[in-house]
């Protein structure tokens, strides 16, 4: 049993539930929600961008081409499943060739 991992998952679970429920209970303090949405989106954009770069195992031409093509599909379809499938498809074809 990895207790550190279990505690980490518990903390993340409490954090996720708490951040959804507690602010809602104090609804009256959150008036301008559309403005907050824009601000909070920035955190998500920055985190996803940094995590994407950090998780490219090796930066090769093949990886880059696969991600650029996936980016074009992501812009066109805005669908998580399609983007991942396209990236994997391009990467698989170039790996097997």
């Amino acid at each position, binding site marked *: 049993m*990895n207790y*550190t*991992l279990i505690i*980490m*998952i*518990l903390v*993340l*679970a409490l*954090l*996720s539930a708490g*951040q*959804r*429920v507690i*602010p*809602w*209970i104090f*609804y009256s303090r*959150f008036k301008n*929600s*559309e403005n*907050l*949405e*824009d*601000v*909070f*989106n*920035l*955190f*998500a*954009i*920055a*985190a*996803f*961008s*940094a*995590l*994407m*770069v*950090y*998780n*490219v*195992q090796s930066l090769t031409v093949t*990886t880059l081409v*696969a*991600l650029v093509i*996936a*980016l074009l599909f*992501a*812009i066109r379809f*805005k*669908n*998580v499943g*399609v*983007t*991942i499938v396209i*990236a*994997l498809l391009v*990467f*698989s074809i170039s*790996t097997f060739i």
Partner: protein
Amino acid sequence: MFQPQKGTVLSAMGIISAGYIPPGIAFGSLAIALHVPPIYVISLSLFVYSGAVQSAFLGYWSYGIEPVSMILTAFMLNLRHTFYGAHIESTRENVRFRDIISIGPLLTDEIYAVSISYPSLGSRKILAISIYAYGNWALGTIIGITAATYAPEIVLSILALALPALFLALLVPKVKKGYGVLTAVTSGAIALLGKALGLPSYFIILPILVGVIAGGLFRLVFSGEEK
């Protein structure tokens, strides 16, 4: 307020299934490809229940979990959830405390989008759709775990690209304005620099914060033109 038609609920469920099962499969299979034990993979989906935070967990897992950075990143990723409940409540009457307590923990991006898109859906129907979504996410994860467990090594090595592709797919729909592009580019460029220099895992918080500050300042200065 008029009663929602059966078609409204069905179309909401269709949106939920399309949005939950494929990423659930991707998450489950990717976690197995990264050698996360299945019990933790399913625990993440059942207890954390946040695609963004779970994906971030995998991101940290693959190069070593640093608890403070992980929790701070999760906190920032979840920040957007803070206004969801308030926004849903502002579009409806008679939202009770027990609705907040029951729907709140299951309130995701998709549930928020469906609730705002269909204001005729009452609290009880939103709760039913939320539980349905939770089931879809768990089912997708289990399918992903099962598929990846029996996949050959070459397939797992190809699946490693799914993680950056997943972050790319999560990132693109959120970039709608100039300051979003600036945030993504700044954060990505600093992360690339950190990766090239081989900086430790906790460094990742820096590109995130600098990206947010750059985008926030741009938004503040050019807010007139952006809107």
